[in-house]
């Protein structure tokens, strides 16, 4: 039960953080116009959200799910922040 | 024109469905089915143009497939 709750948390919060990080990173690092990068990043972010949420339930453990999402999110977020 | 497309799609589904259980002519039925699907695509492009044609084709495919599946048990 706790396992499911933890994974659900990862599927909602973790996946959202990862999706946002991917969207932001794409928006900032994709070559070309700022607007195109924003569109592409956000569209991609939605896909990442769905896939990540799904993955939260098949990852080997709830902890892996959380780390698997928050770690890349943190790295991407840091990259975006440094770029500013 | 659109009606023709619907008929072609329906024919395709009938052929492909039959092909799944047929012991003879399985390949023939599959080829006919694929050909009918392609013909339906061509007809859709004629009816709706190159932009909307593919969208309409998918709509015809889904609508005819659904009609076929839900009517089938009642048509025996």
């Amino acid at each position, binding site marked *: 039960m706790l396992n499911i709750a933890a994974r659900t948390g990862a599927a909602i919060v973790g996946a959202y953080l990862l999706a*946002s990080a991917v969207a932001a990173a794409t*928006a900032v690092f994709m070559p070309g116009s700022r607007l195109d990068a924003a*569109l592409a990043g956000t569209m991609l972010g939605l896909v990442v959200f769905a896939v990540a949420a799904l993955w939260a339930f098949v990852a080997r453990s709830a902890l892996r799910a959380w780390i698997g999402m928050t770690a890349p999110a943190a790295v991407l977020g840091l990259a975006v922040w440094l770029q500013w | 024109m659109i009606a023709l497309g619907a008929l072609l799609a329906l024919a395709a589904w009938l052929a492909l469905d039959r092909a799944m259980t047929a012991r003879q002519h399985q390949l023939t039925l599959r080829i006919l089915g694929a050909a009918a699907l392609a013909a339906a695509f061509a007809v859709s492009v004629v009816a709706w143009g190159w932009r909307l044609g593919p969208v309409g084709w998918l709509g015809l495919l889904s609508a005819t497939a659904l009609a076929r599946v839900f009517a089938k048990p*009642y048509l025996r």
Partner: protein
Amino acid sequence: MVKAGFRQTMAWLHGWTGLVVGWLLFAIFLTGTISYYRFEISDWMLRPPVTAEIVDPATAAARVLDWLAVEAAGAPQWVVTLPGDREAWMRASWRKPAERRAQSVLIDPATGNRLVATDSRGGDFFYRFHFELWMQPIWGRWIVGAAAMIMLVAIISGVITHKKIFRDFFTFRPAKAARSWLDAHNALAVLALPYHVMITYTGLLTLMFLYLPAGSAGYRFDTNKMFADMSDIPTRPAATEAAALAPIGPMLAAVPWPVRRIDVQRPGRADSTVILYAAQTGMLSVNPGNAIFDATTGALLRAPLPSSVAGAIWGVSYGLHLGRFADGVMRFLFFVVGLAGSAMVATGLLLWTAKRAPGRGRWLAHRLNIAAIVGLPLAVGAFFWANRLLPADLTDRANWEIRLFFAAWALTLLIPRWRPALWLTAAAFAGLVVVDGMPGAFNLGLGLVALCFAGAAWKVRQ
């Protein structure tokens, strides 16, 4: 959970995600499907007395703008929608600075004057409910967005779960309770899968900047700047002296496409601009083009620009969701597939309930199923009845129709069995055809709905 196999986990996830949002999702799906006939519903409910004279767009536009110069003087923006294939009326909207809400009225193209039509929201009610649930916009949109994202997860997990996707394609065994619901659910899901994936993902796209504002990182999260870039309207130096609007005819003639919408910014001022938006005939994208003019001189300020790749993808995706390009048969195909999607959600709920052991959970699910699956169509019938029965001069009439819709829907929670609910709905729609008495495609549609519900009432076992 960890021990379960991949496919079992997907099946489990599919079941739970479907259950969590199922009842809400059915409402979203059905009202969205109904919205394919938004203008036809508005026509039936408002019955605007449009003069049957063919007016050329330039004349009609000029008349409305003259009317707006009197009625909406001082407003910072006027928006005029020209008549389309599916609506004979024009629409004029504006918001006076002192007022909180925008005004939106129907205009007769032949006279340029306001149409005195029934005070009703018409089809726009279903359209708005579909993505806002008639709540505070931000709340409603977030709830619908969450449901849509969960739907996307349900679709993906459903596809993974379904092993024999092609063989089971054509299997439907009726009258076998859970087995039948499963067969129906599979068929409805798989046979229209391209549509379900498209409509769910593009639905999220339409409000994606609300859901994922992080995408505006390139603009340092200044979404206003991003939206300004998207609409690509050049800013002009302010000039507040009064200046009259140049004739609209030459502007309409200057663009290579038929115009759908005229947007006048800062009308009456020297720095006023007119933006013409192209009609979406034969084009998938919602942004087939726009051109910007100096409103006082009629000079072209910015010619139509081609979309970038990302812009085109977004425009086409948005366009696919709205389906405004579709007419006649294609619109009907969209409607049919949308109904299939609604039925997919419904059969999923029915399947889940049928497999439940008898008890409190099953009883609750059963009652919610009735209220959601038949209750909503019944409420739609009640909405149409309210439209025909409420007195024309009732204050706040449009909102009363909506209140009655929700009241009827809530009352359906009290219906304990399928059969009475189905018969009631059939009777409601049949009665509408009789009461209205006019021939036409819309009433034919209502009659078909009545027949479907009557058929279902006849076939259902309890």
